[in-house]
């Protein structure tokens, strides 16, 4: 017996020691420790959830259909080019929804040649022939590849933007069903961050069609190969938005993919910020050619289908630089530079879930959570001490240890403490004493039957143990199911509840028993004060 208790005590002390070691990095004390202490201690800290720190949680849905559409359109352009090169004439070719491309040829003899070209250069398609028509069907695995690539690329682009925006500890992850999870803790201006992340940022340079009239086009007579896009002019005084229509050539002369740098500059004449773009050598060559070939015409700068400006080309521009003006605020110009540097999203994204918690609410929640925990804890502690006397104080000790174990468990597993998680801890405080209540009630019963202290404690623990185990397993089942199906904050609740249940078994049964054994077996106390 005596030997047993020493081993058990050692185990308990060891467990408590480990728990404290893991808890320290999460405490304010940690910051004041010297360098060597920080090196020895584990790095794991309790993470605070967004609901406590403040921040945004976004789920973005990548419009993968649009990505497939873009991909097919690109191939359509390339095919057209290849056919011209090989002198294959066609009557018509168009994208058939998301299924593929249909090509109607002039001459039947070309069918075989075109088929060979496609087989060689575009292996992503299954080819069907019908009279003079070649029907290209996008293969399922190719489609999946395009979709996956679009999502990966979107992920990468968003990560770049967030990095440049400057957020500490962002969490950006791919999820199922082509969605991306973005969690940004401690953001001060959530609206700005959401705009920055969600912008497609597709930059295009298009020529303005000055040969046809815009008014005619607005009446529905749009010349072939043209489109109408608008410029948004915001009156700084009234905030009223006016839409100015532009008739543009549909063909994109240059896109933002050749941009190497984008930065904010201030126009000394108007004192307004603008964004200066630099192209790589290939982009610069294209830009020089376009500007050289179209002097005195207007070149529209279009971002996400909105016209920003349409200056007249005065001369060939060789340096590979362009600027976007458009009455920006400093902030807008800064964010635009970021998205242009980080590149366009391969497909538009849509925010399908947003949970924003302002920093003030997060602080309030922590404060209130701690207050509720302390007050609940004090009431329970006092209650146990009064009701069960010495035994109650032992149970209270177990309760304190239990809370330490939960906290260090959270740090150890790198789990996140959320507001429902705090609720889980509070609940555990209420329920953790249950094990001790069961044991103490049993001991009281045994004492009433006339048993001695040691025997009563022995049977009390023995009988209560199975019941405690049974009762806790059911709560544990519920907690595990919750963890499996829950999201974010709810998972935090499931985690604290689970750790709390396991920890309470250890503290309320194992540790209290050591103290009882010490007092009554080793020290030979006679009267059980319970």
């Amino acid at each position, binding site marked *: 017996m005596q030997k047993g208790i020493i081993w058990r005590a050692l185990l308990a002390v060891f467990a408590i020691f480990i728990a404290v070691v893991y808890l320290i990095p999460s405490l304010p004390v940690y910051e004041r420790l010297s360098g060597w202490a920080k090196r020895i201690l584990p790095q794991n800290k309790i993470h605070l959830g967004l609901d406590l720190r403040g921040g945004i949680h976004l789920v973005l849905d990548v419009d993968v259909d649009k990505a497939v559409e873009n991909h097919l359109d690109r191939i359509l352009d390339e095919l057209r080019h290849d056919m011209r090169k090989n002198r294959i004439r066609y009557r018509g070719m168009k994208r058939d929804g998301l299924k593929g491309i249909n090509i109607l040829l002039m001459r039947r003899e070309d069918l075989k040649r075109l088929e060979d070209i496609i087989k060689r250069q575009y292996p992503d398609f299954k080819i069907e022939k019908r009279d003079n028509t070649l029907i290209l069907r996008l293969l399922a695995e190719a489609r999946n590849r395009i979709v996956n690539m679009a999502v990966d690329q979107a992920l990468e682009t968003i990560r770049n933007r967030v990095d440049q925006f400057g957020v500490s500890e962002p969490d950006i992850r791919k999820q199922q069903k082509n969605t991306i999870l973005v969690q940004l803790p401690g953001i001060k201006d959530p609206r700005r961050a959401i705009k920055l992340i969600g912008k497609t940022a597709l930059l295009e340079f298009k020529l303005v069609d000055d040969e046809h009239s815009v008014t005619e086009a607005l009446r529905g007579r749009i010349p072939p190969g043209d489109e109408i896009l608008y410029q948004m002019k915001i009156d700084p005084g009234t905030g009223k938005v006016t839409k100015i229509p532009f008739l543009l050539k549909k063909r994109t002369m240059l896109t933002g993919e050749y941009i190497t740098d984008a930065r904010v500059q201030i126009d000394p004449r108007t004192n307004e910020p603008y964004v200066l773009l630099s192209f790589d050598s290939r982009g610069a060559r294209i830009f020089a050619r376009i500007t050289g070939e179209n002097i005195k015409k207007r070149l529209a700068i279009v971002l996400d289908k909105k016209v920003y400006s349409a200056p007249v080309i005065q001369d060939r521009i060789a340096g590979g630089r362009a600027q976007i003006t458009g009455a920006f605020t400093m902030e807008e110009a800064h964010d635009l530079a970021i998205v242009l540097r980080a590149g366009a999203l391969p497909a538009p994204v849509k925010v399908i879930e947003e949970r924003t918690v302002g920093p003030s609410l997060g602080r309030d929640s922590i404060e209130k959570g701690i207050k*509720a925990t302390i007050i609940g804890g004090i009431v329970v502690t006092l209650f146990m001490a009064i009701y069960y006397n010495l035994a109650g104080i032992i149970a209270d000790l177990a309760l304190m240890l239990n809370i330490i174990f939960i906290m260090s468990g959270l740090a150890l597993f790198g789990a996140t403490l959320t507001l429902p998680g705090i609720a889980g801890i509070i609940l555990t405080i209420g329920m953790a004493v*249950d094990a001790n209540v069961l044991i103490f*009630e049993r001991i009281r019963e045994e004492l009433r039957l006339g048993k001695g202290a040691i025997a009563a404690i022995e049977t009390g623990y023995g009988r209560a143990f199975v019941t405690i185990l049974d*009762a806790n397993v*059911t709560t544990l*089942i519920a907690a595990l199911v919750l963890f499996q199906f829950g999201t974010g904050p709810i998972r935090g609740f499931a985690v604290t509840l689970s750790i709390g249940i396991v920890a309470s078994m250890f503290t309320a049964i194992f540790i209290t028993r050591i103290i009882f054994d010490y007092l009554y077996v080793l020290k030979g106390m006679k009267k059980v004060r319970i």
Partner: protein
Amino acid sequence: MEFIKPGINIDFIGKRKIAFFLSGSLIAITLFLLLWQGPRYGVDFTGGVVIQVRFDKRKSIQEIRNALKPVHLDDSIIQEFKESGISEYLIRVRKTNINLAGIHDKVKDALEARFGKGVDIRRVEMVGPKIGKELKQKALFAIFYSILFIAIYISGRFEMKWVMSIIMALALSVVVYAASSFGVKVTWLIFIAMILTLGLCWYLRLGYALGAIIALIHDVTITIGAFLITQKEISLAIVAALLTIVGYSLNDTIIVFDRIRENLRKSRKQPFALIINRSINETLSRTVLTSSTTLFVLLALFFLGGNVIHDFAFAMLIGIVVGTYSSIFVASPILLVWEKGFGTT
């Protein structure tokens, strides 16, 4: 110190008719409300937007509504509540046929245009309809699986009939799988699973499991009823609370059942009703004590924990009270009814 004197002998079983009547009518009210008005789901499940906002000066709800008129959101539900003595407002937009992602912007702009800079957007929750549907599915499946696992655990652990419980689990899984492949809605799946579990418990002579499961269905139903009556919204956090209640309710029930089995072994001669009643009385002190410590901390959470956690604490409070009541007045008497019906336990 003792609240409950040892040797106390309250005739709980004798009052089972009153208890059955009370429980029955509470459940009937819940079912009636459920069918008649339906539950109010939070944005987690319906999709929509909730915005919590604080102003530097107190505003009337009508003022806020007027401010939202230019952006056509004046049909939102606006609620005022006090947080540490300061008025805050919840603006709920329940439409889902508009661009939800833009609402945060619109509301902030509209409020700032009207009230100036003293507008503090404290919290925004926007859930698209697609996500809402997914979350609902997930929540329902969570409820379903917890019922399944717990049913297996109780029947196995309690009756020492692990084989039976595995048969039950298999039967349940097969039926549910078949039903779900026919496209049955999850709500009905849960209903089917519940009926089937009860039926199987009955058929396989799993009396304790039957009592425990009826008690937990009873607790969860009445807690939902409390939400229906108070017109509170059922959100993801509430589902978490319901599952915790499931765990807690069983916890209580198991402790009484454990004592019944122990007493049965000790005195086989005594009538079953007497043994049940004695067991309840013997564990009464523990039941009352644990429930009260749990209630204390939940009351602390309810009054001090702040608005975000308020409804969660409310659900747990109701659940603990009902769970305590049901382990005394519902679960054990059902054992007796069962025993009378079959003569075996």
